[in-house]
């Protein structure tokens, strides 16, 4: 399915709502469970992000660290991730899936081989947390050549000059980090300030789909629903942790949470 990410935003826009994007870690807590979770929540999602677990995640807070740790403990490997993406896409062909990870995992696998695998497995987009502009230029080009959307990030610390350059070199989706933080902390800025930052980006290039992420929860999601898309990650990972701790089924609990999130934005 070509340009399924753009399409997902179009559908949401037509329904006059923000796109809902989940972030879970592939392999959390087992390979099959993580696929079951994604399959179950995908009906409420516009786009799914799957984290590639790494054991030195310098930009992640405690919740995603825990998820990655569980996945690694259960032996997840990159080839498993590609297989799981393939299995997901078999039944949810039109649901875009974005892999998110640290550059070390790609570097170790080999950039070209990694992208080839992404392409044949059905990966629609990539977010590489620690491969920022301008160091990502070549990699982004390689993605584009293979019809994979390379998602650039913009942070509250990003200068205007840099922001313009990033937007210029970006593909159809841009990820705006809500506050100065790792994943999973609380929103440190007021909603007003976050929306203001968002509007700055949109004004530079209205046609880009800009999503906001980091620290979005059930409580805050509805206040931000004017954005093109919203990413909820740590809150979901936290729910998996909680479910496992109480010996409950994470699949049903996470599905309930995502349903609630969806209800807050429609």
């Amino acid at each position, binding site marked *: 399915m070509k340009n399924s990410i753009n399409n997902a935003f179009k559908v949401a826009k037509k329904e006059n709502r923000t796109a809902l994007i989940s972030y879970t870690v592939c392999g959390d807590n087992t390979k099959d469970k993580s696929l079951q979770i994604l399959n179950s929540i995908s009906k409420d999602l516009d786009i799914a992000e799957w984290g590639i677990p*790494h*054991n*030195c*995640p*310098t*930009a*992640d*807070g405690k919740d995603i*660290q825990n998820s990655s*740790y569980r996945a*690694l403990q259960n032996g997840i*490997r*990159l080839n498993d991730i590609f297989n799981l993406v393939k299995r997901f896409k078999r039944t949810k062909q039109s649901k875009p899936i974005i892999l998110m990870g*640290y*550059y*070390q*995992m790609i*570097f*170790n*696998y080999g950039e070209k081989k990694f992208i080839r695998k992404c392409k044949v497995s059905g990966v629609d987009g990539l977010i590489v*947390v*620690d*491969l*920022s*502009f*301008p*160091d990502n230029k070549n990699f982004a080009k390689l993605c584009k050549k293979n019809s994979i959307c390379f998602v650039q*990030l*913009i*942070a*509250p*610390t*990003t*200068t205007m000059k*840099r922001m313009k350059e990033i937007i210029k070199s970006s593909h159809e989706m841009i990820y705006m*980090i809500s506050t*100065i*933080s*790792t994943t999973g*902390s609380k929103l440190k800025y007021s909603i007003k300030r976050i929306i203001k930052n968002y509007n700055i980006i949109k004004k530079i290039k209205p046609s880009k789909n800009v999503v906001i992420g980091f620290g979005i929860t059930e409580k805050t999601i509805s206040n931000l629903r004017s954005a093109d898309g919203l990413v909820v990650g740590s809150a979901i990972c936290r729910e998996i942790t909680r479910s496992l701790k109480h010996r409950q089924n994470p699949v049903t609990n996470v599905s309930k949470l995502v349903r609630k999130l969806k209800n807050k934005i429609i």
Partner: protein
Amino acid sequence: MIKLKKKIPLIDQHNKFGFYGNKFGGNFCAETMRKPIEDLSKLFEKLRKDRKFLKKKDHYFKHYLGGETPFFKLENLTKHLGGAQIWCKDVSAINGDAHKAYHATVNALICKESGKRYIAGDTGAGMFGKNLAMAAKKMNLKCKIFMGTKDISRQAPNVKFMRDAGAEVVPVDSGSKTLVDAVSECMRHYVSNCDNTHLAVGSAIGCNIFLKICAWSTSQISRELKKQLIKEFGEIPKLKLINVIGGGSSALGFWNEFIDFDKKHVELIGVEAKYAAPLSTNARVAILHGAAQYCLTDKEGQIAETHSLSAGLDYPGSSPLHGLLKDSGRARYTNASDKEALAAFKLITKLEDIRPSLEPAHAWSECIRLAPKLKKSDVLVVNNCGKGYKDKKIYIEQLGYYPK
């Protein structure tokens, strides 16, 4: 093979993306950190040319850290081993007990200049943590030190120093509970607080600017040594400079002024801990803590666990600058086991008055291996970069005693 450039400081031999030899280093960090590290780079480039700042730094080195550290011949050890002359650059005599004092002090000075009131650093052996805590106190900065819980317990004397100096010691209980996790957690703290906090990375690792600040600061060691050698020998004699490698900050400081010498004239030898030895065991290049470097990983690319009795060496990565020195053939790297380091400590302290910590004990081990194979005209200099008090308990556990 990578070629080193002559007459350009090692730290400045990178391209515009922060890569050395197009292979090592770089800035693999979250977007949030880009602006803060760019600001820090600009500030550092300004300060290193600023007379007033340099004067202030020298003043601190002289009066706060105690000035030039001693250089002397170890007569007994030389006689005992019966080969090369063995000399000691006793950096452990510095106020602060290790080379970490230099870059802790410089980082605190830079933090002050940046106008930030908070400073955060990682530590393994506790030497950097302790020195950063003391420098922060001296300069009226609020200090947080990130340290693995395993290291908090095995380097307790240094933890006490940090707390007494008023620093907050943040225990890191994830992963292997050692330095690698402390650095990760400290970087996370910085990502979340980079608007008001200066990040002081404990070794010559991390994004480009952090390793530059570190190696620039420790290079004081080789500036002194060069003068001391000329005073002793009237010239720079045929030398071997032996230094332990954790992240590699002390070695870079010890070697900096000698990089341009031919390696037949001044040989550079780095000694890693046997089970934390990316440079001497042909590890692959990996990205860790913001930089490409030789690093121990598993097949999947996950960062490997390491094992060393020495908390300061228990780290899977290595400075990108050591990758450069290795690939250019300028330095060579070897390693020593816990057992060999302990045996070296035993011999050195029996014959001489110095009390090295576990880290430099690894360098002494290589010195002991090497000296008997060499001639009297060969000069071996070992950087005795840390004092042993912090490892007293470990030495007693392992050897049954700690010398007076």
